C-alpha cells in the first residue's frame, strides 16, 4: 500500500503559455520541459493513488502539452466562451495526465490534484465535464469522443465560426465502429475545422493492436474515409507544434494526424510494455522513473 500523496509531492508549477511571437525554439523548449513536469506529477499521482493508466498517460502527454501549451485557443477564464476551441480527450482513461495538464495550464488548482481518485473527489478515473473546468466531454468508454468532436465541429460550421475542434483518440480505440461512423460524417460534412489525433502507440489493453485486431493500414483507412492524413513523431514537440499549430487547412477535408508514440515513454522499463497499460509503479519503480525523468531536466542537459 503506498502512502498517500502529500503536499511535498505536488511538484507541478503552472506553465505560462508562450507569448505570441515567441521564437519557436523557446516555445519548443518550454513545451518539452512542461511535458517533463507533467510526467513527474502524473507519476506521483498514479503511484500514490495506487491506480491509473500510466502507459497511455505517458504516450499522450506530449500531444496534450503541445495542444494546451501552444495550439488550443482556450484559457481558464474563458471556459464558457462560445468561441473557445474545443478539445475532446476520447481516450478518457488517461484522465491522470489530463488533469495534470489542465492544472499546469491553470484550469485546476495544483493542490486539487492531491484528491485524484479519493472518495468524493471530482477527479475520478475518467474526466467528467460537469465537474472539471475545461473538460468538454465526459469520456471513458472508448469511441465516444470522436462523434462528439464531429458534432462540435459541425456546430462551429453552423455558426460560421473559425473555432477549431481537436480530439485525441487511442489507436486501439479506432476499432470501435462508432468512430468510423463519425469519420464518415466528418468528411461528408467537409469539416476542415476538425483535427483527429490518434495516439498511435501500437498497444491496447491486452496486447499490440496488431495482435488484438489489426488497424493497419490506418492511414489508408482514414484517407478512404475522406481525411487529409499526416504522420508525426508524437513525442517531438517541435514537429507536433508545427503540425498541430498550423492553421492551414486542407480545403474541405478534416485532418487525421497519426502521432507515433510509445506507451510509457520515456521510462526505460515502461516504454512499449503492454503491462504498463494500467500497472502501478511500486516504490522502487517510482524512484527509478523519477530519476529517469530528473535526468532529462534541461539543467541536466537531457531531452525527452
Amino acid at each position: 500500500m503506498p502512502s498517500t500523496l502529500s503536499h511535498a509531492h505536488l511538484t507541478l508549477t503552472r506553465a505560462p503559455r508562450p507569448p505570441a511571437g515567441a521564437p519557436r525554439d523557446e516555445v519548443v523548449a518550454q513545451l518539452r520541459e512542461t511535458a517533463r513536469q507533467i510526467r513527474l506529477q502524473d507519476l506521483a499521482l498514479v503511484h500514490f493513488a495506487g491506480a491509473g493508466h500510466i502507459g497511455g498517460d505517458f504516450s499522450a502527454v506530449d500531444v496534450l502539452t503541445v495542444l494546451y501549451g501552444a495550439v488550443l485557443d482556450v484559457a481558464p477564464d474563458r471556459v464558457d466562451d462560445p468561441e473557445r476551441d474545443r478539445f475532446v480527450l476520447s481516450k478518457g482513461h488517461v484522465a491522470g495526465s489530463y488533469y495534470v495538464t489542465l492544472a499546469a495550464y491553470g484550469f485546476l488548482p495544483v493542490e486539487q490534484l492531491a484528491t485524484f481518485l479519493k472518495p468524493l473527489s471530482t477527479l475520478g478515473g475518467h474526466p467528467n465535464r460537469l465537474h472539471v473546468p475545461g473538460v468538454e466531454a465526459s469520456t471513458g468508454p472508448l469511441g465516444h469522443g470522436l462523434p462528439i468532436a464531429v458534432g462540435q465541429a459541425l456546430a462551429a460550421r453552423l455558426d460560421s465560426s473559425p473555432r477549431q475542434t481537436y480530439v485525441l483518440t487511442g489507436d486501439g480505440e479506432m476499432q470501435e465502429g462508432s468512430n468510423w461512423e463519425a469519420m464518415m460524417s466528418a468528411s461528408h460534412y467537409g469539416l476542415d475545422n476538425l483535427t483527429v489525433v490518434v495516439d498511435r502507440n501500437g498497444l491496447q489493453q491486452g496486447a499490440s493492436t496488431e495482435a488484438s485486431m489489426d488497424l493497419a493500414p490506418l492511414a489508408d483507412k482514414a484517407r478512404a474515409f475522406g481525411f487529409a492524413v499526416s504522420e508525426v513523431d508524437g513525442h517531438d514537440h517541435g514537429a507536433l507544434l508545427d503540425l498541430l499549430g498550423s492553421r492551414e487547412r486542407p480545403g474541405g477535408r478534416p485532418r487525421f494526424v497519426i502521432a507515433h508514440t510509445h506507451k510509457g515513454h520515456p521510462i526505460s522499463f515502461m516504454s512499449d510494455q503492454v503491462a504498463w497499460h494500467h500497472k502501478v509503479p511500486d516504490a522502487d519503480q517510482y524512484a527509478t522513473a523519477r530519476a529517469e525523468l530528473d535526468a532529462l531536466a534541461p539543467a541536466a542537459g537531457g531531452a525527452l
Partner: protein
Amino acid sequence: MTQRLAPRWLEAETFDCRDAFVETLVALASEDPRIVGVVNDSVGSSKLDAFRTAFPDRLVNVGIAEQDMVGMAAGLAGGGRIPFVSGAACFLTARAMEQIKVDAAYSRNNLKLCGMSPGVAYGELGPTHHSIEDVAWLRALDQLVVVVPADPVETAAAIRWAAAYEGPVFVRVSRTPVPQVHPADHTFTPGRATVLHEGDDVTLVSNGTVLWRALAAAEQLAAEGIGARVLSMASVSPLDTAAVVQAARETGALVTAEESVPRGGLGGAVAEAVVAHHPVPVRMLGVDAFAPTGSAGYLLDRYGMSPEGIARAARELLHRRRS
C-alpha cells in the same frame, strides 16, 4: 372488441402524433435558432419534411448510424445548440444506449431524444422494429426525463417543455392514430399526472397510445357502476408518486396499461411506488413478450389492452379483492 365503446370513441377523429411533434418543433425553431434536428435517414419516418423545408441547414442527417447520431448531438449541444434527435425508438434507444447513458444522462447534455413509432407501432415489421423495452431501459437511467405522451396535445406540450428544459429528455412520439384525450390547454410537467376520469373503486394508470383505451374502459366500467379513476401518466420518470399513492389509498387497486414491457416500465414504476408507500393489488398490462406478426391495433388488443380487455382486468382485480 370495441362494440361497447361509447360513441365518442368510435367517432372520434384520430391523429398521428408525429404531426403535432413536427408542427411544434417548427414553431419552436422559428423562435429559437439554437434548435436543430438530428436524424438517421429518418426524415420521412419522423415526418420532419416540414422542418427540413423551413430550416434546411438545421437538419443534420448522420446516415444510418445511431451511435454517431447521439454522439454528434452531444457535440452540437456542446456548441450551444439544442438538438432534437429523431429516429425510430427501437434503434435510437437500443443502438445508442451507451451514448444515451454517458453523453445524455451522465453528462447532462441538453439533448432531446425523440423516439419515433415506439412500442408496437411498426406492427407487422415485427419485434426487431418494435420498441417495447425503451421505457424500462431509459427509466433505469439516472438524470433522464422519460415522457410518453398520449395524444397530439400532450405531444406538443412535451416537446415545448423539453425545448425549454435544460437537460436530457426522452419523448416517445407515435404514429399509431389516437384520439385527443387532453384538453387543448393541457401542459406537461415532469412528475405530474392528470386525472382524466374520476372514480373511487379502482384506478387505471396509463399513457401513450393506450390511454384512450383506458378511458374507454373507464366508461364501460362506469356503465356497470364501477368508478374507475384514470391517471394520465406521461411522465414515467420522474413518476408522480403522490398521485399513485393517493390512488392506492383512495381506490385500493390499480391497473396499469402501456404499449411496452411492464417489467420495469410504467407498470413496474407504479408497483415500486405502491409497495414503498401503500401496498395494494396492481395488475400490469403491457406487451410483455416479442409479439407475433400483426398490426399495432391488433397487438394491443391481443395483449389485453382493448378497452374491453382493460375493463376486464379491472373487474377481475376488484373481484379478487372482494373474494
